[in-house]
């Protein structure tokens, strides 16, 4: 399989950087970064990533609304939610909105890679 392209969505630059490092080290191409839900939707349309990582709490448009929108655009969209501990209800909401999997902060590299890999396969 060709290098999968990934769109990273997170409102903090630190998190985006962390994710970017981990994923590119493991052979994924980062096709774009978004700081909020609205930007994620725009980038999804323009970059057509194979997978999106989606933070839940973000300004302008939160992750859950963004997941719903993206699923509307593309039923086959592959989205992995990034959540913090204690966001159980939100994670479940995101999953029922169509997200494939979730990872919990603080991130552990192998978990992220595993989740992304599984989501791309499934």
């Amino acid at each position: 399989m060709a290098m999968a392209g990934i769109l990273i969505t997170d409102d903090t630059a630190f998190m985006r950087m962390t994710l970017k490092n981990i994923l590119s080290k493991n052979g994924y191409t980062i096709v774009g970064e978004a700081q909020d839900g609205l930007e994620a939707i725009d980038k999804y349309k323009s970059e057509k990533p194979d997978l999106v990582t989606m933070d839940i709490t973000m300004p302008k448009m939160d992750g859950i609304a963004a997941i719903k929108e993206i699923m509307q655009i593309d039923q086959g969209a592959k989205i992995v939610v990034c959540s913090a501990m204690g966001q159980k209800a939100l994670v479940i909401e995101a999953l029922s909105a169509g997200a494939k999997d979730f990872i919990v902060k603080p991130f552990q590299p192998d978990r992220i890679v595993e989740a992304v890999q599984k989501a791309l396969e499934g």
Partner: protein
Amino acid sequence: LNLDEYKDIFLAESREYLQTMNQSLLALESTPDDQESVQQVFRSAHSLKGMAGTMGYEMITQLTHSMENVLQDLREGNLQFNSTLADILFQCLDALEQMLLEIESGEEAQIQISDLLKKLRTLEQSPCVSAEVSEADTEVERENSNWIPQLEIYEHEILKESVDQHEKVYAARVVLREDTLLKSVRAYMVFRVVEEGGTLIKTAPAVQEIEEDNFGDEFAFVFTSRLEPEEILPKIESISDVETVVLVELESPAVQNESGVNEGTMDPAQSEKKASTKKMGSKQEHKEKTVRVETNKLDILINLVGELVINRTRIIEISKSSERGGLTEASESLDRITSEMQSAIMKLRMVPIKQVFDRFPRMVRDLAKENGKGVNLTIRGEETELDRSIVNQIGDPLVHIIRNAIDHGIEAEDEREKQGKDPCGRIVIEARHEGSYIAVEVEDDGCGLDPEKIKASAIRKGMISNEEAVHLSTEQTYQLIFRNGFSTAEMVTDISGRGVGMDAVKKIVEDLNGLIDIDSQPGKGTRITLRLPLTLAIIRALLVSTHNQILAIPVENVTQNLLISPQDIRYVNNQKAITVREEIVPLLDLDELLAGKCSPAGDVKQDVAVVIVGTGERKAGLVVNQLLGQQEVVIKSLGSMLGKLKGIAGATVLGDGRVALILNIATLI
């Protein structure tokens, strides 16, 4: 996440697991190839590890993890069960128990586990098989269907409907990675997969528990689906953090329903026809039928019912003197309902004495081993129920009695053989109902008590004189054992034989309004019987009046009521006494006794009522003004201001609102 609020439940559950492990290890000692027990210990250690990990108790996690490794080897046959292994595992359990105590009291961890960890590590065999482990795991689980959740009748109805629609019934067990975060969400993802093609019927633990992340690393569930196992399994396996999945298809329940439903619940695991499932099944069933309630909530309820009972009596008295017709009927039905409520509530206080007995097999094993003696323990009547507060206090006295039996009662093996006895000693612990008492007996077939030896020892210690010794009956001689500072042990061991035990035992039993008896035959054995009241909260009491107050005497302590005339009174050692059934009983004036004067009864110029009370061997005649009758009274504590008053067990409120003190005969006379 505030973990403090989970601490209580963590402690309670952990202790249950420890108990299970203790029992299973004991079972393993007698049948070393009992796979079910190995499983039990393994599962318990595993669950404990998971719980401790969540709570952040590092030491417990470490220790249980190492235990798990050893148990894993055991389970796979890489390791043979032997007594060294058993000893180390038992030590681990003790260490865990200690850690729980430290957690409970909030103390700094004192206990060192590095030694234990080292011991465990030497036991462990080559730890290189991690790749095969999960497979072996799966194999073992397949063998064993204990984990399958039990279904209630209504759940069977749902199952039946699904089966009618040609859906299949499955049970699945999912183990998550140990360090999984948001486990509940993982479970949710699993259930979502399941519900794509069917219906989730039941989960273990319950859905709510799972939703609240209240489970270890694993959960199990029963569901129906129109999909084939090959379609479902990969989907669950592909969920992140899912380590292993076991999926079994259960036989359609519709066929066997007829026979199963009669029993109230049916075990779907039966369809797997495994004999071992039964035991576990019934245990789970038991769990689902109980609710954990904090004991102080229960105490409040019991207290309130006590108040209600008192007020009921009052209302009935008022209604008797009232003209209004309806009131009598209403108060009669109030009477009936409160009586029923009272007995129902009292049952809540009752707990099986098993709670206390459970620790004895382990204790007897350890003590016997230490002393190099063989001891066979038989426990009977562990389901006998007793008031919770009595159960809480009866443990230590029993421990002491059992220790004595092993230390001093049971002879060494060669000695026993010489006497033609079975080289292995026998101890029987039994609880049973005996009227309004519960009798708890500890019997051994050891050397028995030698009255002459006891007398000699008592004389040597200056407790009695030579002349007194001659006149003592065998029973009276045995009573010497309960005196402060008595011990006949030729060799003082570190656990008993210091002479500070039996007097404490007697005191605890008497504080509980109980009695203690010794029966012994030299060379044959000793039997110690404790008789304990069924309950402490409500007792039957004889109400008596003195010159200035009403007093309640527990009927257990009352042996007789008499009317005596002045000429019945004799003087023994300048003390007033009367003869009751050829026994001389000192006569005491209740008012004076309570006033702290131990002076004998004052001048008796006319016939007076005397209540003969007794506790154990001691008896006394209490001079009272009037006998008022028997009544059930609710014992209320006097509160911390007054604390423990000599001779007073508590107070009660009578039907007319007056307060009566309840006498504690054991400390009074």
